[in-house]
């Protein structure tokens, strides 16, 4: 089984593809069958992913040193050969596990959530297509394959955000998501092209060998830094990093399972994953690392500061996702593949959990989005309540929940970079100290806003008197429970004490394996920060010791800034509508009146000339005769007086 799965890993993305094709072509009129086929396929993929995971753990060192790769030529010509295939190493095995797991759970959850929607089968088709794309991205052995599936997940994201396309907001959000990520992909594609041109290959393993010797390929460190930065534009777009984060909160217009699967757990981490896959490129040039780290930390803090004031459950979760993705980027920028992938995994568990929980709440509240309309939901929906609490604790980083381990690891590696023991020496050391402070602040804010939401929703009295909340059906509750469990135990794989040294970092790493010793100062201080955040939330939103309205008034400018997301959306809209569209309109004017004007002008001139010459034809016979004789005279004069030697005639083209 393990052997089979390893050798036929391509089946993992292929099965959902089959499901997609079947549903689209044949099964569309049969919603139940569609769901069944789709779930079956993803479950088989899940089982294969597990067996691959087991195989990788058994293989140990072997897979880290030399990934298991199989590929066939996709297309080729002299000087350009692109393959399609799969590459199994611990990182991709981990991702396969996470993606198939969350995808399977979300598909099961959707049976209940999407019940009765008229696009039920189509929804499953899209989910299958997404699973196919994401899994294809995960196993990609080269950058182009990655890009191909990267774009396909973008498409799925577009389709699923806009799943309720008849809603004005959904259609706009879908469009925005696609275009924003496209903007980033512009950079990614350019980066890929440059890598192909300079290094002659896009194969990850080949590149890993060639890039460290970049000087042999005619590149300077500066140029390589630039290439890395350009390439990083893709992850910025896909993983919602500042300044291309704007699409992600809007993407919550999609059905909630979609938000959980795509915009929290899997797709948005593709950017992180891509940077992780190409970390050898970034590591070669410290400047690029610092850039990634800074973008990550800034995004984390920035998004957290917005999340504090939002009033919609899914929006808050979305900003929290942006913030956590920034965390992962920060980890990569600090040079630790382990930390970022670890956080990626735990985040997938608890964020999917929270989104599904939010979905459960929305389902119960009939899609009422404003959290201030909720309250006291604890007594109506206990499963949702408890699992959601687990999620909140996990993201806040409280021991022993999953988030604690991963977040702590990130803080540690960032701290290590700022103390000269990390890889980034010289000019960037100070920067990492700053980043560490930003990360810590983010941690505190995260705890605060999460519990703010938690208390507003689940405690106190139900504020909307017309609502009749109820617990969700089994198909929706089951995934919550599974994810809840994972959110608790998921982090333990990174607990060196529990795993006999072969912790998460032993498998998922770049470079030599080092056992990270627990830095108790860090652990304690970060826990304290988290507790302060939670405490604040308790004080304000549960116990109402401090009035939140008062606070908002006191810090009105800051509050408004945060509530309006720093006006980034408005700025973009202004730029697009006034500048870009303005240029478009101006150019159209140019096209109509100048480019076309010249053409029409030539045509008109011809016509006018025609009418002018026409007037010579007066109808008077003697005018005609006069012209005739004038012609004769002119010709005679020309012929008699002009130098009729061959040389001068050649001016007119004669005499050759």
């Amino acid at each position: 089984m393990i052997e089979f799965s390893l050798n036929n890993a391509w089946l993992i993305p292929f099965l959902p593809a089959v499901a997609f094709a079947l549903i689209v072509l044949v099964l569309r009129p049969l919603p139940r069958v569609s769901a069944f086929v789709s779930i079956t396929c993803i479950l088989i993929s899940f089982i294969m992913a597990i067996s691959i995971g087991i195989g990788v753990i058994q293989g140990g060192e072997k897979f880290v040193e030399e990934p298991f790769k199989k590929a066939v030529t996709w297309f080729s010509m002299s000087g350009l050969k692109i393959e399609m295939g799969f590459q199994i190493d611990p990182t991709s095995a981990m991702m396969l596990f996470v993606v198939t797991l969350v995808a399977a759970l979300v598909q099961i959850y959707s049976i209940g959530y999407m019940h009765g929607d008229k696009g039920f089968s189509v929804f499953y088709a899209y989910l299958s297509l997404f699973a196919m794309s994401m899994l294809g991205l995960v196993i990609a052995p080269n950058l182009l394959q990655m890009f191909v599936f990267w774009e396909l997940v973008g498409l799925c994201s577009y389709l699923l955000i806009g799943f309720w396309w008849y809603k004005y907001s959904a259609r706009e959000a879908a469009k925005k998501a696609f275009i924003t990520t496209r903007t980033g992909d512009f950079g990614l594609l350019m980066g890929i092209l440059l890598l192909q041109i300079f290094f002659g290959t896009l194969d990850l393993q080949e590149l890993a060998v060639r890039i460290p010797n970049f000087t042999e390929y005619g590149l300077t460190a500066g140029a390589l830094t630039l290439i890395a930065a350009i390439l990083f534009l893709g992850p910025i777009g896909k993983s919602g990093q500042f300044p291309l984060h704007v699409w992600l909160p809007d993407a919550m217009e999609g059905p909630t399972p979609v938000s959980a699967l795509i915009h929290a757990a899997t797709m948005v981490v593709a950017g992180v994953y891509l940077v992780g896959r190409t970390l050898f490129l970034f590591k070669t040039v410290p400047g690029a690392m610092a850039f990634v780290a800074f973008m990550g930390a800034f995004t984390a803090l920035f998004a957290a500061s917005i999340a504090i004031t939002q009033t919609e459950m899914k929006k808050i979760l979305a900003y929290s996702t942006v913030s956590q993705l920034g965390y992962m980027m920060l980890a990569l920028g600090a040079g630790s593949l382990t930390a970022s992938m670890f956080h990626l995994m735990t985040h997938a568990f608890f964020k999917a959990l929270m989104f599904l929980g939010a979905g459960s709440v929305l389902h119960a509240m009939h899609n009422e989005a404003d959290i201030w309309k909720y309250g006291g939901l604890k007594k109506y929906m206990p499963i949702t309540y408890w699992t959601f609490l687990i999620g909140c604790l996990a993201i806040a980083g409280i021991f022993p929940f999953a988030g604690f381990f991963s977040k702590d690891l990130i803080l540690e590696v960032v701290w290590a970079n700022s103390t000269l023991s990390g890889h980034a020496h010289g000019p960037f050391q100070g920067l990492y100290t700053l980043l560490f402070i930003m990360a810590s602040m983010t941690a505190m804010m995260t705890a605060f806003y999460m519990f703010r939401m938690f208390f507003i929703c689940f405690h106190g009295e139900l504020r909307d008197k017309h609502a009749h909340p109820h617990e969700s059906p089994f198909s929706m509750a089951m995934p919550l429970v599974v994810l809840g469990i994972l959110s608790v135990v998921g982090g333990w794989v990174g607990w060196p004490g529990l795993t006999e040294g072969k912790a998460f970092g032993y498998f998922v790493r770049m470079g030599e394996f080092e056992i990270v010793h627990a830095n108790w100062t860090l652990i304690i201080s970060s826990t304290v920060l988290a507790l302060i955040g939670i405490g604040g939330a308790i004080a304000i939103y549960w116990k109402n010791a401090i009035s939140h309205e008062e606070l908002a008034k006191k810090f009105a400018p800051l509050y408004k800034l945060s509530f309006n997301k720093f006006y980034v959306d408005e700025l973009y809209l202004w730029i697009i509508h006034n500048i870009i569209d303005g240029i478009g309109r101006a150019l159209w004017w140019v096209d109509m009146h100048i480019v076309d004007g010249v053409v029409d002008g030539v045509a008109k001139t011809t016509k006018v000339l025609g009418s002018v010459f026409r007037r010579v034809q007066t109808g008077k016979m003697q005018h005609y005769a006069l012209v005739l004789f004038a012609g004769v005279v002119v010709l005679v004069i020309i012929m008699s007086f002009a130098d009729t030697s061959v040389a001068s005639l050649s001016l007119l083209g004669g005499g050759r």
Partner: protein
Amino acid sequence: MDFPVLTVILLAPVVGALISVFIPKEESRIIKAVAGISTFISLALTIVIYFVYYTQHLDTGGMAFTEDIPWVSDLGVVYSLGVDGFSLPMLLLTNVIGFTAVFSRSWSVEKRAKEFYILLMILIVGVMGTFVARDLFIFFLFYEVVVIPIYIMVIIWGSGSKTKDVTKEYAGMKLTIYLLVGSAFLLAAMIWLYMEAAEMRGLPTFDIATLASLSSQFDQQFQIIVFGMMGFGFTVLLSMFPFHSWSPDGYAGAPTAVSMIHAGVLKKIGGYGLIRIGFFILPLGAKFWAPLIAILAVGNVVYAALICLAQKDMKYVVGYSSVSHMGFVLIGFASLNIIGLNGAVANMFAHGVMSALFFSMVGYIYGATKTRYIPDLGGLAHQMPVAAAGFVVAAMASAGLPGLVSFVPEFTTFVGAFKEASLRIPAIIALTGVVLGAVYVLRMVANVLFGPRKEEWDHVEDIRGSYWIPVVVLIAFIVTFGVFPSLLMDMVNSGMQPIAAKLVDAARVASQMGGNI
């Protein structure tokens, strides 16, 4: 010389047209069926020879299925046909689009259907002929066959626009005269080339391969002038900026089938000729003009894409987008290396299929709702889900989504362009077209298809009956060639080998001369 398959492919629509002449004009369904059958015969045969070539001739390359019949002896014209890895994809494209165009919906074709289908058949034959001709004279003969039917079709069955003060008469005339003026230069260049070659050999010939074998003997000055004139003719047809303005107006004015064929394949004759004749016979000329082409190509991509943003008429969006896409093709040409050429040629194919689907869907919607003005439309996915799906696929292909036909060609084009250090800046600017392309197609998709239901369109019908054919066939091609790009790329690569070799030779010659090219 066994079965003259290319002649049969060419003649099938001719026979269809002749049969249609004798069918009474009230029997429009029968006429349509005849047209469908005859184009299907061509399509089926083309697919067969495509795969025969793919499996048997790919390694050796060169012309296959050749036919040679002396035609005009004193001019040295030979009715010589043949296909290689370059012409086969184009022939396939023509037939796919020709076949689907017959079944696409054009508003008002119901009236005078007989004339419409006869002209359509002539049009298709003309386009096919250019791609299979190995003789320059025959090439040109077929090339201009297509101009006049298009004019007549535009003025009879075309339509004006709500957003621009343009009548169909104006659009048709502009398209026709513009292309003819371009072809005047082309013809002049061709005549000169022919006479020079005849003087050199002492024997007149129009055989493209023979002319190409003389290319090292044409002096540089001559090549530059002739290529310049020829290039003007071909790039006008390819709607190169700033000679593109016929194209959006023309497409907007034309009935659906004509828009499909024109944007889909006819335009590609420009690219085909530029490479097959310009690059192949006059490599030094190509070298001289390539930088200018590159710069104008950037103009195509960015300028047209930005204009697309300002459009409110569906056909204008697609029209300008096709101008924009031609920029990718041109920049691939300008790279003058095999990767860029492969990409550009494959891009022509990709854009052909994609824009045909696009125009087909736009035409369907226009036919059903009688408007193309985007603000009038909206939420059409309620009433016509199938058309909407086709529309979205076309839009995604237009945005260059991987897994659909246009991604690999675009990528390859850019690899080719980036390979030339001098083209990197233009290529990077052109790459922004990828983003802008997504913006305008998605805007259109959103505003036309999605959003709340509009009552006034409740009466329109979704795609049914034979209108399914374009959707199914074109999507099948878009996806197949998207998922298995080597079906296309291997073919194109084999076709481009000799041309690229010629350019490499020319580069060597030029560097030996130490000239300033």
